């Protein structure tokens, strides 16, 4: 991505944070570039909000520095930072009308009345709520309140907007609408968005860059495509989308043994006879006539999912998750084929600990 060529706008250096004796963030490094839509994605409690609060100034790290535009802002209070936050539960000022809510930041900065009036109506237009100035927050729907919270932040023209699960409280349809609206807003305004969510679909739809976190550690940083297609470890593979994660053995370059059968793949450089994990996305498992398959088995489960069928195929003692537009009734003997470039090889986690962690997370997720 071209982001990595520009200088980072925000630089988190070696950040650690504990609450009590519980270590939440451990020596985290993260660079955020100008104009980037970066998403922190991870299971509940992994420290996403904590990182956002450290960037926003509501929490001071125990160790490490927050650099913003080449200045150390680690100890600067929130009201002195050039960034604004959209809080998880909107946090509108219930005693002020919408106009006053949005004008709050500008009034603090002693802007002129005319300027404020123009800005407020411009911000309301941006979030498609023209003419709402005189309404009270509690007379608005959840989606409208959310958009007001966004308008209240962007009217201050921050360089960076921090959003903590801003769509978490909305229903699916509204959430999808708001996702498009946020992307449009970001493109209109040309500012950096740091977005927190635990919804992987949301992250894939909206982000330029996704940071996958687990238990205070960054698991992988990359583009949505990169993370989806080339997960670096089993945790990422499982967290992003559904997948078949199987113990395997790299025989030699471009040849991997999965469940006792050799598959051609495209990966090289893992050495010979190396234990690895392979990830195969359910949509990449091709069902065919048993005679044509690399391995064969029988369909054990079938669910219609609208666009596709979801099937489970028992083959070589493993339950393969398969997404296909073709339907094979339960009990049908089928063959399984996988194109070599759809087999993703990953190194095994280095320590038993790490493996335990990622397995635990897998279970929590399913």
């Amino acid at each position, binding site marked *: 991505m071209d982001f990595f060529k520009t200088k980072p706008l925000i630089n988190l250096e070696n950040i650690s944070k504990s609450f009590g004796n519980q270590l939440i963030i451990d020596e985290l490094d993260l660079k955020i570039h100008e104009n980037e839509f970066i998403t922190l994605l991870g299971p509940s409690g992994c420290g996403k909000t904590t990182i956002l609060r450290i960037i926003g100034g509501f929490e001071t790290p125990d160790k490490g520095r927050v650099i913003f535009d080449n200045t150390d802002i680690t100890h600067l209070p929130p*009201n002195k930072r050039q960034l604004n936050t959209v809080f998880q539960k909107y*946090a509108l000022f*219930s005693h*002020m009308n919408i106009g006053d809510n949005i004008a*709050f930041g500008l009034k603090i*900065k002693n802007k002129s009345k005319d300027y404020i009036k123009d800005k407020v109506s411009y911000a309301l237009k941006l979030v498609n709520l023209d003419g709402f100035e*005189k309404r009270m927050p509690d007379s608005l729907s959840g989606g409208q309140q959310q958009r007001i919270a966004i308008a209240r*932040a962007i009217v201050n023209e921050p360089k960076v907007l921090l959003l903590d699960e801003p769509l978490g409280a909305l229903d699916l349809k509204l959430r999808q609408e708001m996702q498009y609206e946020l992307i449009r807003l970001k493109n209109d305004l040309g500012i950096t968005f740091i977005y927190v969510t635990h919804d992987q679909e949301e992250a894939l739809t909206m982000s330029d860059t996704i940071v996958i976190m687990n238990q205070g550690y960054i698991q992988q940083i990359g583009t949505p495509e990169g993370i989806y297609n080339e997960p670096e470890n089993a945790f990422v593979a499982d967290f992003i989308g559904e997948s078949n994660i199987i113990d395997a053995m790299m025989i030699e370059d471009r040849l991997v043994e999965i469940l006792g059968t050799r598959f051609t793949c495209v990966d090289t450089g893992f050495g010979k006879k190396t234990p690895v994990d392979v990830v195969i996305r359910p949509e990449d498992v091709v069902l065919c006539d048993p005679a044509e398959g690399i391995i064969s088995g029988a369909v054990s489960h079938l669910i219609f999912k609208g666009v596709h069928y979801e099937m489970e195929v028992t083959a070589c003692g493993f339950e393969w998750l398969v997404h296909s537009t073709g339907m094979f009734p339960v009990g049908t003997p089928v063959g399984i084929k996988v194109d070599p470039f759809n087999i993703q090889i990953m190194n095994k986690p280095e320590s038993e600990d790490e493996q335990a962690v990622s397995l635990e997370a897998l279970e929590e997720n399913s």
Partner: protein
Amino acid sequence: MTRSVNDNNRKLNNRRNFGTILMGSPYLVWMAVFIIVPLFMILYYGLIDRDGHFTFANIMAIASPVHSKALWLAILLAIIATAICLLLAYPLAFILSRTTLKRSGFVILLFILPMWMNFLLRTLAWQALLEKTGVINNILAFLRLPPLNIINTPAAIVFGMVYNFLPFMILPIYNSLLKIDVNVVNAARDLGAGNIKILQKIIFPLSIPGIISGITMVFVPALTTFVISKILGGSKILLIGNVIEEEFTHAGNWHLGSGLSIVLMLFIVINMIASSIFDKNREGSML
């Protein structure tokens, strides 16, 4: 479609209302017997004379110099006591609402603790403390300090009111401050507000409902008290509450007592209406 949903809702509402009335009936009976009936008795006695003829004389009696002086003094002292309570209670409630749960619970307990003691007893205790030859003056004399001569003055009455009614100011304000979401304060800070602006534009406005109910809860009992003024004010300072009590007990003139009570109730009602209008204005001006 919409209509049938509405009908269903109405049916549901009716059923719910019926249930509410059923559940509430003991309270309704209670209210009728102990609040509504006495109110009507006061109205009845206040509007007739000894011979049972209808008259406004009992109410008009408020215009007599003694009575009107007692009323204005009561209003003045109640306002002063309420103002002092507010000034003391707000910072305290604010500090309490900011401390961690355990400690603030303990401090709140300290403030509520005296309320478990009898009101009369507490006030009598202060009489003994403030007496010309009482405990406080003995200590002052021992320390060779000038004596404190506030017993039997309006100051002592105000002191008694503040002492007795302060918790009623602290609790509603504390509750309203506690209800303020930390994220709302964080949002204000995020938008550039410093501590003073946050206090002025967020915390204070959001605590107004608490302030108003605190004011009502202190002002009304302070306005109507006769015990505090009797015990700490001696017999010379008459508040309207003392006048009414005199009429009901020693003078045995229930008609005059009721008439003056009606006037006093009028002031209480005015206070309540004013506070509710003020509260509504606050909301209304934002609409």
